[in-house]
């Protein structure tokens, strides 16, 4: 219908800022950019300070370890972003990762000749299946995702323990081609990290540029309004849990490749780190805002803090405290930004419509 008065657009430029493309990057997006920039600055400062104290922190090997260390958390945080944006949360990701990692090991154990891409597909599918369980229960039970996934956190882990029944799988049980995946580098960058980058880019782009991606934000921002505007809320939320499960499955396979030694406890407690990474990365826990890029930066920041405290030989106790402080700082920053924007917008809206 906007075609009907196509003759008019020039006039808009007359009473609005003239450069349309500068204007396109409007307030909503600039806000995100500010948030991501602040993370980058924090990360930069952290690296700088640590390097000043110990110049080996930026050596090739240590950077490689760092990138390797954060890859799995990044993938999980990005998956979690999909869920949190819709005003849900998935606490079962650590258990899914553990289950899939063990399954991958068992697969190689029982069918030694399995090519690793097959294992990858099986792992992702198993993760997605766990996601189906989560999403299905949430749709049927109409109970908050927090409660359901708290249940499946224990359930999946229980299955894992039952299956492993005290066994451990060792690197020797897995084909070298698979294990190499966990340590190989391309131009000095670990493959694992490249995989994580691809995931970040894909999910980030999807969330920003696809209709169904934007609908996830709408659902988290105002569920009732989402329903009224015809968004298939139930279907989207289900899909999000499946996608997150699949990503946790991917992370599980990569975990197996990286560590080689697996028992039923792999990935225990990881879910809290994942949620922390997303929150530090600016993903609002009440849904509706945040980006995959931010969550990934949050994951990198948390991992970097861990290694920099180790490099600086600071008591691990402090690591917990620092992460805690960081989460509070992140929430404080979000609040501050929100208030400042609100104040600015209020003034603007009063002026804007007065000459309408």
């Amino acid at each position, binding site marked *: 219908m906007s075609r009907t008065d196509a003759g008019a657009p020039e006039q808009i430029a007359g009473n*609005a800022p003239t450069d349309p493309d500068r204007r396109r990057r409007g307030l909503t997006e600039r806000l995100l950019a500010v948030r991501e920039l602040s993370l980058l600055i924090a990360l930069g400062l952290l690296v700088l300070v640590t390097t000043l104290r110990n110049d080996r922190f930026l050596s090739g090997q240590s950077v490689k370890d760092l990138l390797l260390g954060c890859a799995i958390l990044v993938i999980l945080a990005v998956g979690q972003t999909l869920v949190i944006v819709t005003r849900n949360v998935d606490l079962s990701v650590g258990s899914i990762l553990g289950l899939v990692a063990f399954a991958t090991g068992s697969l190689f154990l029982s069918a030694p000749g399995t090519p690793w891409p097959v294992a990858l597909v099986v792992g992702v599918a198993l993760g997605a299946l766990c996601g189906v369980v989560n999403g299905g229960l949430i749709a049927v039970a109409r109970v908050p995702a927090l409660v359901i996934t708290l249940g499946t956190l224990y359930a999946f882990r229980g299955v894992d323990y039952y299956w492993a029944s005290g066994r451990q799988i060792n690197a020797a049980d897995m084909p070298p081609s698979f294990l190499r995946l966990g340590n190989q580098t391309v131009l000095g960058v670990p493959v694992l990290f490249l995989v994580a980058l691809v995931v970040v880019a894909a999910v980030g782009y999807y969330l920003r540029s*696809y209709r169904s991606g934007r609908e996830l934000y709408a659902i988290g*921002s105002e569920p009732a*309004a*989402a329903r009224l505007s015809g968004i298939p809320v139930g279907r989207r939320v289900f899909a999000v849990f499946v996608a997150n499960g699949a990503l946790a499955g991917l992370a599980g396979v990569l975990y197996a490749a990286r560590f080689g030694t697996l028992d039923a406890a792999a990935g225990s407690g990881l879910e809290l780190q994942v949620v922390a990474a997303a929150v530090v990365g600016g993903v*609002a826990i009440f849904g509706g805002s945040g980006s995959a890029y931010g969550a990934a930066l949050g994951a990198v920041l948390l991992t970097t803090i861990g290694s920099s405290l180790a490099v600086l030989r600071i008591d691990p106790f402090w690591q917990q405290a620092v992460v805690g402080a960081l989460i509070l700082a992140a929430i404080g920053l979000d609040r501050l930004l929100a208030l400042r924007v609100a104040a600015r*917008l*209020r003034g603007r809206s009063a002026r804007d419509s007065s000459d309408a």
Partner: protein
Amino acid sequence: MTADAPGTDGVPLLVLDGVTKSFGAVAALRGVHLALHAGEAHALVGENGAGKSTLVKILAGAHPPDAGEMTLDGQPLRLRGPADARAAGIAVIYQEPTLFPDLSVAENIFMGRQPLRGLRRIDSAAMHRDAERLFQRLGVRIDPTRPARGLSIADQQLVEIAKAISFDARVLVMDEPTAALSGVEVERLFAVARSLCERGAAVLFISHRFDEVFDLCHRVTVLRDGAWVSSDPAADLTVDEVVRRMVGRDVSSLYPKQAAELRDTLLEVRRLTRAGVFTDVSFSVRGGEIVALAGLVGAGRSEVARAVFGVDRYDAGEVLVAGRGVPAGKPGRAIAAGMALVPEDRRQQGLVMELSVERNATLARRRALSRLGLLLGGAERAEARTWTRRLQVKAARLGAPVATLSGGNQQKVVLAKWLATEPRILIIDEPTRGIDVGTKSEVHRLLSELAGEGLAILMISSELPEVLGMADRVLVMHEGRLVRELPRAEADETSIMFAATGQGVTA
């Protein structure tokens, strides 16, 4: 039966027949009949709680009807959800804005229908351009890239309107779209609605303002207590006749304020300034006096009220209550000094939707009702009953959640809440927005009574008849400045509109 009076050509575009809907024990609609014709604007009127919004939600596919048929172009129409209604070409503006606060205004308009470029990606440049074009068509300036959070209620309404007209709708349903708008914007909206009619769309329009109904609509359907009363060509009706059918009795639509003895100055505002919002605003209100703050939407009236009450900060100036200064930015102190603010955006700022009617009604008064820190249920209920009865709140029970009330009845609960605090100074922003004729005159009588008891009342209103009927003095704002003060005798429509549009004043 007058529903299909001769003179309308052909088959109606959309027909509802025998539509019934109950919420538990409440029968919201009972066998309602409605026929919308292509090229016609059809008004739906009725008291608060008559079932208008319920009908809208059925048309929108948001509620399934318990019984009854719908046909579109003579074909049976079954809506399994809002998406179906959309696909059938029915665009709806709901009574309560349904925006996504975190998303940009343009995304709010085009959610699910964003223009695409290659690989089915969203073309955000095109989306923003289209949004700007829509706003231009409505003659308003809202930045499409800003988040919807923090939009004034009028702007939210405009975004909703832009959303609805962005559909190539065959049926446009508007549930009180004008409640928050001023005259200029209403005119623009009507122009758009008329052009849609000319292109063969059908419009269903709901409003409590009869001048709008008769201005826009060709046909008027009246609902009372969920039941269909009549459908007639607008030309055959008068306002009084419509009101009689709605209410079932005669209502005087006049509400002159009774003269009250003017007492000491209770509220004094000196040179209040907030950069970019309002400048150098000074006025005073005496006990027994009703002062109206008039002006166009966006002139800064609500902002001044919020600053006086202390919810917003201001950069300069002072606020005095009975000669004593009230600190800026502390609504708690303002309440302690005897001020009450009935905010403009009642749904967001005035109510806890999940709580019951009685809880909400006494929310601001809980301290006074408690003994030794304990809140006694009995006292709370009695107090709530008094006020909800005075304001004729229509609710299934006092214990029902506010969310289940009709829009107008929610407004009444907010009014009850603040009136129950027994303030000395009452600041009331759009006292009768969304409230039906019968209760409107009741609210006016109440305000007049309160003034008679010595209250100082500052009333913001965009409805000129209300301003002229109620105010002892009219202050007119234009672009953040007080440009004119008119005593009752000098205030009339022309003088107020003249000042409000900034004519004859150097801004």
